[in-house]
């Protein structure tokens, strides 16, 4: 009887140990399989990423050897699938960063090409008139006239170069925006001050409706420049005795600065074009400008987390709305 009890206890113990060992081996196998799948997928993603340098991401995806296997693992309600899809997401993010670097390089090349295009005209004019000055048969009167033209072209060149440096500094974000909580009224006063004389010359009525105490977190200098650029256009393209008005309204997430004019308006198909670098409407004619004002304004506002919208009616006028986010000053 005693031996039987001992035997039974021994058997139970054996089963328990056996069961424990079997479970251990089973779950260890599962974890090893899971880890193998994930590691294989990671390696596959790496291979695919390296293959990217040769061609498009889509081609690399399709030609990768493990593609079919990884496809089976995706979109399943399993742990392995979740891990593989997260790795996929990581690869996507890294690939995009690489592609972004490439497109930034191309963008810089484009800017360089645009700048040289803009500088060509005054430079070739200067050369042309300089060549004419070298002509011995030129009269004193003509000499004076040519020298005057050369000086004008040099002024234009200086203006161009300064504007381009200004714009490219903003582009490269070399300018550090100092965001402070200050009354927006003072910033707008600065901007209005810059165009008041031009407006008066054209007898354009300027109206400002802005609460004096309203504070907004913004860069005073650059925001004043952005607003001045829009006001400058408003005055330029509004006929004599027209109106330009400035209205500020505080919202929950944004503060809106609205600039409205009774100018010639902008066709809806050009709403986005006007913010492009060097864009000038065909009808701008003799008006001085490089076509950078609105481009810069958009950059400045965008760097502050805001945006600019425009609505216009041809022949009636335009309304520009600058939205600056209401945020707390960062200390």
């Amino acid at each position, binding site marked *: 009887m005693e031996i039987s009890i001992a035997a039974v206890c021994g058997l139970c113990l054996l089963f328990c140990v056996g069961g424990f060992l079997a479970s251990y081996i089973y779950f260890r196998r599962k974890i090893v399989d899971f880890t193998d799948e994930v590691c294989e997928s990671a390696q596959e993603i790496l291979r695919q990423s390296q293959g990217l340098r040769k061609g498009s*991401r*889509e081609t690399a*995806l399709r030609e990768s050897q493990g593609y079919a296997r990884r496809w089976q693992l*995706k*979109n*399943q*309600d399993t742990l392995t*699938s*979740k891990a593989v*899809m997260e790795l*996929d*997401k990581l690869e*996507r*993010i890294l*690939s*995009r960063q690489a*592609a*972004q670097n490439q497109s930034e390089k191309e963008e810089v090349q484009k800017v360089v090409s645009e700048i040289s295009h803009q500088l060509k005209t005054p430079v070739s004019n200067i050369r042309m008139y300089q060549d004419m000055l070298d002509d011995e048969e030129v009269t004193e009167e003509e000499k004076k006239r040519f020298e005057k033209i050369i000086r004008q072209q040099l002024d234009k060149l200086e203006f161009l170069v300064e504007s381009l440096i200004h714009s490219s500094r903003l582009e490269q974000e070399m300018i550090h925006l100092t965001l402070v909580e200050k009354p927006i009224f003072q910033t707008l006063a600065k901007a209005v001050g810059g165009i008041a004389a031009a407006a008066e010359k054209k007898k354009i009525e300027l109206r400002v409706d802005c609460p004096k105490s309203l504070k907004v977190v913004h860069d005073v200098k650059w925001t004043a420049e952005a607003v001045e650029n829009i006001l400058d256009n408003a005055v330029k393209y509004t006929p004599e005795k027209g109106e330009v008005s400035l209205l500020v*309204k505080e*919202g*929950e*997430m*944004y503060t*809106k600065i609205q600039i409205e004019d009774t100018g010639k308006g902008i066709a*809806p198909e050009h*709403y*986005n074009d006007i913010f492009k670098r060097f864009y000038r409407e065909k009808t701008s004619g003799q008006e001085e400008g490089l076509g950078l004002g609105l481009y810069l304004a958009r950059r400045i506002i*965008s760097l502050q*987390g*805001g*945006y600019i*919208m*425009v*609505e216009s009616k041809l022949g009636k006028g335009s309304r520009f*709305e600058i*939205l600056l*986010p*209401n945020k707390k000053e960062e200390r």
Partner: protein
Amino acid sequence: MYILRTKDLTKYYGEEPILVKALDGVTLEIEEGTFTAIVGTSGSGKSTLLHMLGGLDVPTGGSVEVDGQELGTMDRGELTVFRRRKIGFIFQNYNLLPNLTVYDNIVLPVELDGRRVDREYLKSIVKVLGIQEKLKQKPNKLSGGQQQRVAIARALIAKPAIILADEPTGNLDSHTSQEVIGLLKETSRNFEQTIVMITHDEAIAQVADCTIRIEDGKIVESRW
């Protein structure tokens, strides 16, 4: 890099002689990290297109590819998991669950997938959207604009490949619409998130990086 592509996408209803061509050969490509607006009047096919892009409806012909995977090759189960992990949605009428707090509404997609919530990411999202003070409240205590911002947070939290927004400002007044559109643009930029929005409002659409115009089921213009 294109995160979303369609090729000759068609959706027809009915049969000849009464055949309705909701989509009639739409081919488009959307770059990752951009904010795209698909603009069209009522009946232009824009809602149908959005449903195709989100795998919520099956096309009659053509293909939709999201993040390198063709939706047409997946079965229902796979498509459900794919949508849960790869696609975020923002609806015109917010579609928040009224019995859950704002916080619970936001983290729902991640928790449904059995994943852990990225707390740091959640913090930055609610900060940008200005709803950090509202997390413990129920949706009925929030204004329309605030509810839509919660819906945006919910779409962002799972870091999907694309977010599809169906007339996100449709139920909002013009002032609130401007705020919501600004936030969509800001979140697209800040979190490098691809957002595709359909709208009938041209003025709103200009805020997007790219505008695609659709008419009678066809793309008539694509503008940057």
